[in-house]
Structures are given as structure tokens and as C-alpha cells.
């Protein structure tokens, strides 16, 4: 039986972004019935039992995150929606916001109802002007129709929703960086604990959820937890800590494929399925050399690893950082992994916020080394150095406050360990005189601007 899209069900309708079309397709019915028949606790329960895991990248169980909010707190509680979709190769939130903004709004309303938040902020990526236009228009329509504001649909529930446009910094996608930025400060991620659920925006209890996550909430409330758990990869019975990978998922596909785009599928399709069935195969009749499974920070897998399932545990099994945003980037057999890594290092060096020593220094020094390698002055021992940096920066070795450095480290570690031959060959070819050099050589002035 072919999979019936849920999250993308509306996107091909004419004027799918308008309230009229959304309502004609049954939109806001879930909200209406929830406000009438369900308590906030009911919604929390159904989300918990659905085992929904956050779609932003880390896959933290959403219901559990909500339940961390202190019960007795006098409030206010804030709800932040992370729409700062900045992970390279990732475009799924954008599709949702441009084509079906009301679905997101309904999800936000239900989530706020469940978490008792009366104020919500959408932190929107700067480079998404159409999203801004469509989301703001949808919010205006929702206010006019009584879905937002005081006493929504004559219930006791009130919600104000604001869009905050970011200023083009990747680190604002980290939830506490996002909160700092919302507060008008430099987006330096906060030390945790305290976690945002206890002390978040304006030092009040706060939930930060991704756009796709709140969209899923809408469908879970509508169709039930059992429906949600009927989709995807069940929990591994041998691993008591695995909550499973359930529900519909938006996959992104870019790079060297015939049909890049945003696709919906049950959680757990393989990389090969994504490329072959949705992307109609690698372009120009070539083979894939490497695939980034879920946004640049998740690292890279080889052609031999394409049968990896794209669920929350699959990419881990082949040494990648995780599912990430589930937006794959395909590199064909002609593409240089040195170029790939150079590009990756350039991105992370540019985006490191500068707070933690290992990330600030490590990302820039790895870029400087890649610049030298690219310029034909690489040495074999540079690869060891790159690995040394890659292995010592990030939350996983414990040396940084946020995960940006892990994202910077993974492409380095995966690319060099999985494609070492190619790197060595490149260095020997481009620096035949000096690739074994041990004497100091001047660094290049490559501070990213």
C-alpha cells in the first residue's frame, strides 16, 4: 500500500497557504474539538504515548521535554518554535512554512494549550523571506478568525504568537542560543543545567520545539498515539533506552541526484530508497561516492553504507552523528572529498559563535589546515592533526557548551577515516616535494570573513 502523506497532504492544493483552503480541508477542527473536550493534560499524555521525538535533529522525546516544565510555577511559560532552519542541505521546514503555514499554527496552538503557554515565538531564519510573509499572513488570518488572541474560540485558552526574524547565525538554531537571541543578546548558548524547561526565555520555563515537531503534534492529537506508532521503526526490544522512531518524517534530498526536494515517508526508509525512489537516482548516470545523511553536521557515509535506515538510530550504526534533520546530500563519484571537507570546515568556522575555546580555535584551525591542503601545501601528518582536533571538540568529548562543535567534528572524523586514501593521494599529488615535511611552514592567512 503506498504511503499516504500526512504532513505534506495539503501542499499541492492551490492557495494551500490560506486559511480558507486549510479550513476547507478540515483545518482547525482538531483545535476546536481539543479546546472543547480535552484538557492540557490529555494532550500531554497523547503526545507522550505517541513517542514523538523532536524533529530538529537531536530526537529528544517531545512529551518528556514538556513534562519537565515545573507544575507549580506561577508562569508565564513560553513556547518557542525553532524555525531557524540553517543546517546545510536542509529545506523541510521551509516547505512547510511556505505551503502550509496553518498546519504549523494549529500544531503550535495545541502545543501551547498542552504546555499552558500563553505566549509563543517563532524564531525564523533570516533567509526565508517568503516564509516570513506567509507565516505572518497566516498569523494575521488566525487572529482575525479568533484562533489566536484572548479566549480562543470562547475557551479559557489565550495565546499570542509572534515571529522573530533571526539575523543569519547558525548557532541560533541551538535552543539556548535561540533563547539568548530572542532576548536581544548575543546568541551564545547557555550552560545547561538549568535547561530551558526550568529557566528559559526571560528566565521563565520555556519549551523550544521544531516546526516539524509541532506539525506532528497536530496530527497526533487528531489521529491518536496508536496511529502515530503504527508508522516508522519500532523500538529495539534489546535496547531499553530506545524509544523507537515513529511517525511520518519529512526527508530532504539535495546534491547530485536527479530530483532533489522534500519528501514525506515513514521514519526509517533507507538512504538508498530515498535516493532511488524519491530522488530518481544519482544524476548523470553516475554512482554515489558519499552521502551526508541528515545535514552537514551528521558527518558522511560511504556508498557501501547506503542501506542504512534513516531513523534515529540508523546513522549512529555507521559512525554518523545521528539522524539530524534527515536531509541527505548526495556526492557523486567524481566529487573530491577534500573539497567536501574544506567546504564543511569553512561553514563551521564561519558559524562557531566563539564562546568555547575548543570550538572557536578548533574549527578555524581545521579550516586553515584544509586551506593549506587545498593550496598544495598539505602534509600527511596534517590528517592526524585534523583527527586530533576532531576528536577533542564537542559535547561528546565534553569540551563545549553546545553541539555545534560536534557537528564540525563529525565531517572531519568521518571524511578522513572513511576516505583516508583519497586525502593521502591528494596531498601526495599536490605537494610531491613536501608531503612528508616536518619542519614548520608558515601558516596561511585564512581567517574567514
Amino acid at each position: 500500500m503506498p504511503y499516504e502523506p500526512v504532513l505534506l497532504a495539503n501542499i499541492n492544493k492551490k492557495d494551500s497557504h490560506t486559511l480558507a483552503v486549510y479550513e476547507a480541508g478540515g483545518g482547525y477542527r482538531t483545535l476546536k474539538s481539543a479546546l472543547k473536550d480535552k484538557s492540557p493534560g490529555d494532550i500531554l499524555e497523547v503526545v507522550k504515548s505517541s513517542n514523538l521525538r523532536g524533529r530538529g535533529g537531536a530526537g529528544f522525546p517531545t512529551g518528556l521535554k514538556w513534562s519537565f516544565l515545573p507544575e507549580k510555577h506561577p508562569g508565564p511559560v513560553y513556547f518557542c518554535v525553532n524555525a531557524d532552519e540553517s543546517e546545510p542541505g536542509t529545506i523541510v521546514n521551509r516547505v512547510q512554512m511556505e505551503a502550509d503555514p496553518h498546519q504549523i499554527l494549529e500544531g503550535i496552538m495545541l502545543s501551547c494549550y498542552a504546555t499552558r503557554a500563553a505566549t509563543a515565538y517563532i524564531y525564523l531564519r533570516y533567509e526565508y523571506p517568503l516564509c516570513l510573509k506567509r507565516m505572518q499572513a497566516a498569523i494575521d488570518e488566525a487572529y482575525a478568525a479568533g484562533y489566536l488572541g484572548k479566549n480562543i474560540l470562547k475557551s479559557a485558552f489565550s495565546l499570542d504568537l509572534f515571529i522573530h526574524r533571526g539575523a543569519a547565525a547558525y548557532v541560533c538554531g541551538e535552543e539556548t542560543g535561540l533563547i539568548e537571541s530572542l532576548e536581544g543578546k548575543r546568541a551564545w548558548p547557555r550552560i545547561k543545567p538549568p535547561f530551558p524547561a526550568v529557566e528559559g526565555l526571560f528566565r521563565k520555563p520555556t519549551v523550544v520545539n521544531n516546526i516539524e515537531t509541532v506539525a506532528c503534534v497536530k496530527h497526533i492529537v487528531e489521529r491518536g498515539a496508536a496511529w502515530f506508532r503504527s508508522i516508522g521503526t519500532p523500538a529495539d526490544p534489546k535496547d531499553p533506552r530506545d524509544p523507537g522512531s515513529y511517525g511520518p518524517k519529512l526527508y530532504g534530498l539535495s546534491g547530485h541526484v536527479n530530483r532533489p526536494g522534500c519528501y514525506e515517508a515513514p521514519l526509517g526508509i533507507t538512504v538508498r530508497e530515498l535516493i532511488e525512489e524519491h530522488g530518481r537516482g544519482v544524476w548523470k548516470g553516475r554512482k554515489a561516492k558519499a552521502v551526508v545523511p541528515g545535514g552537514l553536521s551528521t558527518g558522511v557515509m560511504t556508498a557501501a553504507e547506503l542501506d542504512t535506515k534513516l531513523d534515529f538510530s540508523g546513522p549512529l550504526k555507521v559512525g554518523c552523528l545521528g539522524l539530524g534533520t534527515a536531509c541527505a546530500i548526495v556526492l557523486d563519484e567524481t566529487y573530491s572529498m577534500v573539497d567536501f571537507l574544506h567546504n564543511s570546515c569553512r561553514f563551521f568556522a564561519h558559524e562557531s559563535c566563539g564562546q568555547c575555546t575548543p570550538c572557536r580555535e578548533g574549527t578555524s584551525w581545521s579550516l586553515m589546515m584544509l586551506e593549506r591542503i587545498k593550496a598544495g601545501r598539505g602534509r600527511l601528518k596534517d590528517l592526524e592533526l585534523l583527527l586530533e582536533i576532531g576528536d577533542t571538540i564537542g559535547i561528546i568529548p565534553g569540551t563545549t557548551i553546545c553541539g555545534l562543535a560536534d557537528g564540525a567534528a563529525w565531517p572531519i572524523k568521518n571524511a578522513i577515516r572513511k576516505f583516508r586514501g583519497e586525502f593521502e593521494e591528494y596531498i601526495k599529488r599536490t605537494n610531491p616535494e613536501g608531503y612528508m615535511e616536518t619542519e614548520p611552514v608558515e601558516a596561511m592567512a585564512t581567517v574567514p570573513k
Partner: protein
Amino acid sequence: MDQVNLSIDAVEIAATPGTTVLDAALGAGIYIPHLCHHPDLKPAGVCRLCMVEIAGRGTTPACLSPVEEGMVVRTESPEIRDLRRVAAELLILDHRPDCLVCAKNNRCELQRVAAHVGIDAARLARLRRHEKTLPVDDSNPFFTHDPQQCVLCGICVRTCNEIAGVNALDFAFRGFDTMVATFGNDPLVKSRCESCGECVVRCPVGALAAKDFQQPSREVKTICPYCGTGCGLLLGVRGNRIVGVRGDPDSSVNRGILCVKGRFGIDFVNHPDRLSTPLIRDPAGGSRFPGFREASWDEALGLAARSLAAIRNQYGPAAIMGISSSRGTNEESYLFQKFMRAVVGTNNVDNCARVCHSPSVTGLSAVFGSGAATNPLDDIEETEVLFLVGCSPTEAHPVIGMRIQRAIAGNGVRLIVADPRKTRLAQSADPWLPVRPGTNVALLNGLAHVILREGLHDERFIAARTEGFESFAEKVQAYAPDRVAAITGIPAGDIEAAARRYAQADRAMILYGLGVTEHSDGSLGVMGCANLALLTGNVGRKGTGVNPLRGQNNVQGACDMGALPNVLPGYQSLEDEAVRGKFEAAWNCKLPVHKGLKYTEAWHFVRRGRVRAAYIVGHNPALTDPYLQRVEEALAALDFLVVNELFLTKTARLAHVVLPAASFAEKEGTFINADRQVQRVRKAVDPPAGCKTDVDIICELADRMGYAMPARTAADLMDEIAAMVPLMAGIRYPRLEEHPLAWPCLDEKDCGSRMLYEKSFPRGRATFRAIDHAEPAEAPDASYPLILTTGRRLQHYNCGSMTRCTPGLSTLCPEERLEIHPQDAAGLNVREDEMVEVASRRGKIRVRARVTDRCSPGVVFLSFHFEEVPTNALTGDRLDPMACTPEYKVSAVRVAPVEGANVG
């Protein structure tokens, strides 16, 4: 409190709960490398060098891990070493390796980290050095900022925020480009940096470093000579020269923190313009100072003694006026008033509290029965609501200003500010009450009105401990918010909000300054503050009280020592036979019975020929007193004027004999700060050859006038003070070696009184004073439409004799500017930086304009630090009738651009 037991590297350690693993380890002598940790600051967790392994928790920064019972910590392992080594290597590669020429060499935390982690040249070589090239900011006269030496630990940024509350520094740019910068990356001197140097002290590397740093060979613990805060200093000395200043970490007043004057403003001690020979007025000159010739001490003292004796013999002792220095020590003030009373034989002795905080003494005495701060400064952090009236501590008492900002940010203290100017703290206030100068009494009565109307007063306290409530309550009936709004210019809603905030707090504390006292109704303003505290029961408890912020370092002490015309030392009554008898017996003299002249009155008596001579110690009324044309005339008209001074001030230039005196750093003694703490001042260096201490000068003068002072050293004088002043009977030098003592300190077992009036008031019950608003002496009119109000600048102090001889301070604040609101400036066609003429009924001066909304419309502001811009040529000499303090804070003036001065 119970200790938490944990094991660090197999060493069992007991730590205080709430501290971190890093604190515990460092405390136990186990070094864990770190750069961003500083004991004064909240943990930042950004350098990531203090990584440790905690059993069950993996690798984690020690600075972010609170100690827990049974915790097992390992600070070293091969894995940890790798993590630290990579981070340290990368940092070192960005850092210029010129340790030998670095000001922080041997005091550098990066050197320590490198030594501990083990930095290997071969490993560094693999990375191939790359240095950042960023310009050094050496705009500040006292320190440099070299971003290339910076390790981005953020200690300076957090210090500026958490300690100084100034927020001049923050991080700019991102990633590898991240740097510490001012707003807009401007040079430091163009930023809001106040040059307190706290960041320089804490910077772990050479990024922020003092210019011309010299490691002192010894340090001398003493007290700052500026303002009444009374910060502890450690003067760094090499040979016989002060080379640096450090905040005394053991001082409860400042806990090691200093402001720009305390840290960098001590250079005046070494200034070449210091007087070093007695000078005698001589039209022929002959010294480096025109109009004076150099003289021997013998000649100068002889002339002074003969002249004073001759005038006394001819016109009676009341023809001589003595003004003691509020900057000198207690011992000097005591000795000086004894000289005037016992040797000259007059009660004509005063000090410069007359022109600042005398209304505090009259006002607070009228209400409580004693005239000093009620609570310790530490209570700033203990209170709920701070009410600042007429003071700008961030400028005039900067370390108190820092403590207030910290209390707001860290302890959630709420702030109310009544001030006609939008001062730094007014910007943090909720609400700010922009009171029209001269209408404090109306405002304070208005607040009381609202408190009573809403039933927010403390009936139990009023019934148990006060009197006069009924007539007070009746009086404030007439001060409804609408009427008070019309008088003061403050919106009625803000008056109500402030009243509620102050009255509803469990603990509310009033701090006030010269904005209350320097008015023709200054004493009433002080009573108004004290009334509010009585009304709400905010007296005699922690975090409450009424606290004057004393202006000069020892203005409290000068009053306490009896350098006042109406009381003997320790505020003992002149009229009391028993007291007089005690002093007459001890001093072996006959004391004059009649109260003496307050020195602001004395100038009038000079004109009438009744005062013929004056002896002034360390005070410059020719610049600092209002209507200074008249003061100058009076001084010039004296038959004889002798002055003890460090520099040839404007007043000293009018003297017949100038006696070169030792500075605070060159003598022993004590100062009493704003919260009544008697603190030891210690000699750090010898005075310049030819100078004598004021104690020696006064003793030798007394000798020549036939009176041998028995106590001739600071310690002996303190013993005499303790014997004569019951309030200070327990204060002795050996006790002060350990810690300061706050008076009252009644015997040698008494540990002093940080807080007053816990159980009773000196007068039994405190008395509400029913007071009325009166318009200031001089209202603006068509000819003089603006109100001039005066005050201090952060970088300068009083007449500028000390700060203007400290070159760096003059670089930071080289000249005076008239602050004027943009609206007034536009109406008068006055532009920023342009020369304007400011004229009052008494005189006119020229000064450049600073157009700023710090001043309210209709109000202009000037300080009086600059002899070139003698602000007091404008101010009037109308006095508060009770305290004889002049109304510096309200003068009607007109401002006009100077034609021709602004061309080109």
C-alpha cells in the same frame, strides 16, 4: 554549615556546599588548569581547560560542577590531558610569544596552563603558527588593550558587568574573529568605560595591562583619600615612591574593588608641583611661585605664631577663624580644634562639612538625636528597595555605585531614584523621579502623604518608638500627589508608585547625598528622608535606615572630632559644665563658652572687621565656596592668613604664610568613612624633603604660642581622643590593626556599632518633624531662565588639587562642560562643544557645552573641579538657616553662545 566530603585525585576533601569542584580543588592546593575562572565572578565554563572526570558523569568542566557528597573526581588522565593539550596548543598559537616584554610575565595564567599541560614545541610546529593581527588600543592613559594577547576567557567582560556594572566591554564578531571590544569597537576612552581598572586586575594574560607597571617591593595597607566610601588600599611602594595601587581584598567596604581615582589617582603624591618649602608672601617673589619667597620652617612658623598671637591680643580670640580639613586625619582635626580652642581660645573652628553635610547632622539629630549614617554599606545588598535621593554614586562614590548596580543585578534589589538628572543609576530606577531642583521637601512629604493615605505606614513602630506623628500626619495632608506633581514636576502616578514601592518593601534603605543637603532647606530635606523611614519602620533593622553619602574621605571624622563651632569632640555639649570641666582639666585651659562662627558666616564677619585672621588646613574655599568673588574678597581682606597645603591652591595664593604639608600616604592616622568606620591610614613613604605632617605643624605652632601639646603622635592623639570622647572610648590603634571599628565603641571590649537605633534612639523616641516646602532662594525668571545645579565628575574630586595633578585623570576628563538639555540648547542656539557664557546674578563664566538629555529641560549642570571654570562664581551664598550650608544646587542662570569664540 555541614561540609560536603568528596575525593579529588584520591585526596579526601571537605568542601562548603554550593562551591564547585574547581573551587574545592584549588582550595585544597590541587591545581586544575583554567583561564575563564575567577573567584569573584560567576562561572562561565568557556575555556574548557578545567575538564575533569567525575565518576558516573564522565568528562565535565570542574568550574560548572557543584560539589556533592561522595563525589569521586580525577583531575588527570591521558584523555583529559589530550583534551586540555589541544585546547591549550590552539590558544597558544594565536598568542604572541613575547613573554619577556609582557606586563603580566610571571603573573600570567596562560603561562601556568602551558607549564602544567606541557606544551611541546614540535607539536606546536605541526600546526604552523598563525597570528592574529589586530591593533592595540592604547587610548586609555592607564592601561592598554591588546587583543592579540587575549584568550577570550571573558573575565573582563564579566567583570565589567558583574563587578563594575558598567558594561563597557563585550564580545564582538564571532568564531575566530571573536574579540573583546567596546560598543562599535571604539577606542576605550570613547566608550562608556570608566577606567576603574577592575578588568585589568583580573585579566589572566597581558591583553589588558596597566601602563608603566612596576612590581612594588612592598605594600602598605591604608585608606583611599578620595570620597567618603573609605575603600581599603594597598599602596605599592618601591624605595620611597608609590608605584601602584591595589584594592584591599580584606576591606569590608570595597572588598578589593576600586574606582578610577582610587586605583589610578594617587600620582599627585609624586607630583613636582608639591610644595616643599614654607612660603611667605613677598611682592618681590623669590620662589618658583610669584608673590612668595621661600622661608625656613623656623621663620614661617615664627611669623605665623607671632601674627596669630598679635591679632588675638589686639582683637580677641574670636577674631581668628580656623577651618580644619575634611581630608586630613581624625588626629589632625582633633588637634586642630584643640589648637583653636585651647591655644587661640576660640570656638571659631569649622570644617568643610559646613558646605556639604552639616544639614545631615542638624536634620538627623533633630529626628533621631544623632547625626550619622544609621546602617552599614553592606546593607545595600541586604535591602529590598533602595531609595536614592539627590546623589549619583556612580560618579561621586563610584565603589558604592558599583555595589548598588551589583545589588540590582545580582540580588534583585529594586531602585527608586529622585534626581533632577538622568544619572547612570536613574536609568536602572523604577521609578525615576526627576525632581525639580529645590523641591525635595515637597516630594518627600508627598511620598508620606501617599503612604498614609493608603495605610502603608507601620503603626506599631510609630506607636512604640516615635513621637510627633499627629502633627506630621496633619502636615502631609496638604501634599496630595497632584499638588506635589505641580511643585516638583514629577508625574503624580510615579510619586504614588515610588511611595508604594518604598513602603511595601519589608526592608527599604535611603541613601542620600548633597542633592538633599545643599539647599536653603537642606536640613528639612534630611528630616523629610528620616520621616519616611520612621513612617514605614525602616530604622534599626538590617537593610533599612537613612544614610548620608559623605562627600570627602574624612568629613565624618572632622565633625566627630569636634572641628565644629557649636560642639566639642564627639558632639559633646559646649554648654554642659561637666563636659567643659573635663576638657578644661585635660587641656589645661579655660574654654570659651560661646559658640563659634560657622565658617560660611565668617566671610561676612571679615567684611565687618570682626574676623581678622584665619588658619585653613587643606581646604580651598576660594574655589569651592559659593559666590567665590565674596570669599576671595574676604580672604584677601584678612590681616593674616596661614594655610597648610600640598599644592599652591587658589586659597593658598591668598595666604601670608603657606606651610607645606604631608599627604595621606606620608603619615599615620585614621579616617572615618560614610558608615562611621574608623579605619587606619598608614605611612607608605616619607614626605618630600621640607614637608611636615599637619600634626607636627600644629604642635610646633602651639609650642611657639606657648602651649605644649602633650600628645604629638597619631597614636597618642587617638588615646587622648578615646579618653575624651565617650563614643570612641574603645578605639585604640592596636585594635584598629585588626579591623576597622564603627563608633559608638564604648570600651575596649565593644566591637563597635555597625547599625544604630536597634532598640532605642539617643533622644529616646525619634521625633517626626512636620516640615513645609519652600521655594528655593533663587527662582528662575525672565532674565535668568535656567536652573544651574552642581555636582561631581567621576574622574575628579572637589577643587581638583589632587586629581588635576594626576595626569591620566586629566587626560580622561580634561575640561569642564556645561550639560544642557537638547531642547534648551536648540532654543538658545547652543551646539555641542561650543563655547557658551553662563551668567548668574553674581558673575559669569565661559565653558564649552555638552548637549545631553542627562539634564532635564530647564536645568543645566556644572562641576566645580576646574579653576579655569569657576562654577562657584555663579552660585549664591544663601544659607540653610539651621546648618549654614549654602544652596549650591539651585542658582538661576542664563546661557548664551559666545559670539566670535566659535568661529572656525
